[in-house]
């Protein structure tokens, strides 16, 4: 049976053969990598360097190396707030950091947003893909419709959702039927604004990831299901023992892309809440762009690096998990 076969790799041979294999591998990668290195990787490496400089434009010679000062400035909790604390200790100062300092607030908002949006989107997109993978009548139309938010104008989407989540709007009225007493415009409420962004983001990207899962479902060999049926597996067992494991490379892709996409959330926020009210939905990228617009390029890059470190940490963890899964 195919699924029982060990996933073997082709490592054994040594010396010449290995060198030849490396060359072959490099020849596969080269066409893409050269373009990638030249047009993306090099500028990114320069940005890493820029995060340790002070530069507000002008000739490149104006760049001043200042080491980690940009980072120190970003993470410093202003003394005036510490002085006001009744009982300054590590935890109360940490609290201040997440409540008062721009990067602390942006980190808190971005992580909250990501932690909620990623699982929700994944569950919805898998469910939709499974539902629409069957030959239900109208599957083609449903797929196209659900994919639609991804292609339509973000402006239109944000305008419509803002309308729906307004005071006395349809969503508030619906919720009131279920006993909610909330009747404010979502995007103007410090607690609900982030939920408004989450809902729109999940709704906007589930069709996108549904398509990826649909494609992945096509790649699962039919024999696996047939074998499972012969072994007496029911639907649910087929799902957990065949579908899910077979989807795991795709799930890895989806989870990495989603995590990155969520950490980089910007335009939905800009259009719906503008980062407000106050700083309730200020995100890391919103902050980067503010600094960029103030011509503080070093600081803008430093914020981007904070984002990069966050994403890399999560991605390496995901990578480990992928290795573990595919080794099983």
């Amino acid at each position, binding site marked *: 049976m195919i699924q029982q076969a060990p996933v073997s*790799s082709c490592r054994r041979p040594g010396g010449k053969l290995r060198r030849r294999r*490396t060359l072959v591998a490099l020849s596969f990668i080269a066409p893409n990598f050269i373009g990638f290195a030249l047009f993306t990787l090099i500028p990114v490496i320069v940005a890493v360097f820029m995060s340790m400089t002070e530069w507000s434009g002008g000739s490149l010679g104006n760049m001043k190396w200042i080491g980690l000062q940009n980072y120190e400035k970003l993470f410093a909790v202003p003394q005036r707030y510490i002085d006001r604390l009744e009982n300054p200790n590590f935890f109360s100062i940490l609290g201040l950091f997440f409540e008062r300092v721009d990067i602390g607030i942006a980190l808190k908002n971005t992580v909250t947003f990501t932690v909620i949006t990623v699982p929700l989107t994944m569950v919805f997109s898998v469910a939709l893909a499974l539902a629409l993978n069957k030959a239900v009548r109208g599957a083609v139309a449903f797929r196209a419709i659900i994919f639609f938010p991804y292609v339509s104008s973000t402006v239109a989407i944000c305008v419509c959702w803002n309308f729906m989540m307004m005071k006395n709007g349809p969503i508030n009225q619906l919720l009131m039927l279920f006993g909610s007493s909330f009747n404010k415009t979502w995007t103007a409420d410090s607690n609900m604004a982030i939920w408004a962004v989450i809902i729109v983001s999940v709704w906007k990207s589930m069709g996108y990831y549904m398509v990826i899962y649909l*494609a992945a479902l096509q790649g699962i060999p039919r024999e696996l299901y047939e074998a499972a049926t012969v072994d007496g597996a029911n639907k649910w067992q087929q799902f957990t023992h065949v579908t899910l494991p077979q989807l795991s490379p795709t799930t890895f892709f989806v989870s*990495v892309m989603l995590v990155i996409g969520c950490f980089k959330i910007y335009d939905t926020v800009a259009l719906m809440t503008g980062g407000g009210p106050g700083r309730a939905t200020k995100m890391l990228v919103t902050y980067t762009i503010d600094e960029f617009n103030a011509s503080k390029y070093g600081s803008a890059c430093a914020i981007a690096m904070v984002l990069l470190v966050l994403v890399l940490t999560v991605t390496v963890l995901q990578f480990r998990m992928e290795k573990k899964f595919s080794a099983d």
Partner: protein
Amino acid sequence: MAQTGLSASRPVRRADSVAATVGRIALYVVLICLSAVTLIPFVWMLSSSLKLDREVFEFPIRWIPKVFHWENYSLIWTKAPMLMYFKNTAVVAISVTLIQTMTSSFAAYAFAKLEFRFRDTLFLCYIATIAVPWQAYMIPQFIEFRSIGLYDTLLAIMVLQAFSAFGVFLMRQFYRGIPTDLCEAARIDGLSEYGIWARIMLPLSKSAIATLVIFTFIGTWNDYMGPMIYLTSENVKTVQVGLRRFIQENSSDYHLIMAASMVSLIPVSVVFLTLQRYFIEGIATSGLKG
């Protein structure tokens, strides 16, 4: 559905079919509700595209315009060189899709099925660059592009989009799902790695390639930031940049933006609808086998 019931006894089968019918109805209800919500922005776009500017943000929303201003759809062609924008965007989107699909499926094969030093590090580099907000490296990249004479050419957008990490990552993941035994068997049969890629991997990854084509085409078609920074002359601008001429400092012609957005949706929808059959064929064959 049918194949699971084959070995079951009759009464169970009837209970199964009742449950299946109920399930099916529930599924339709959910799908229809979801589609309805999803279509609201589309309807808003459509209705706004037929209104006057000042009516677009009227509150409460008037879903059906008082007067249908069909002339908006002809205005966009005269008020802006939309035809040229469309041509430019098509050139860019098609070439990016071609280059991206070719090079990334090629590279992805190495990342998924070959062993070499620094493979994982290199791959992590690809992913890492997706994570960096563009604003952070926009200036170094701009200086680079300008100095090699790419600034203000369509070529800039092509190279910007065509070698993105996204395609490599997507294809690598699909290739990983293909059993390695197949490659091993082919190697024993004397196929070269290039042969394996062309004869085995490509045919097996049709649905993945369809996905990549859809996403790359749509992504390039709808990209705004890249063309905004790199394209300055009128004769190279793309649709998304061209649309901004309807948004001005102190007023915005949202009715025209929406009309042009509706038109701009056509090519994207055509691509999606043509390629989505690759997500269906599998079903048809499995149905036959059952």
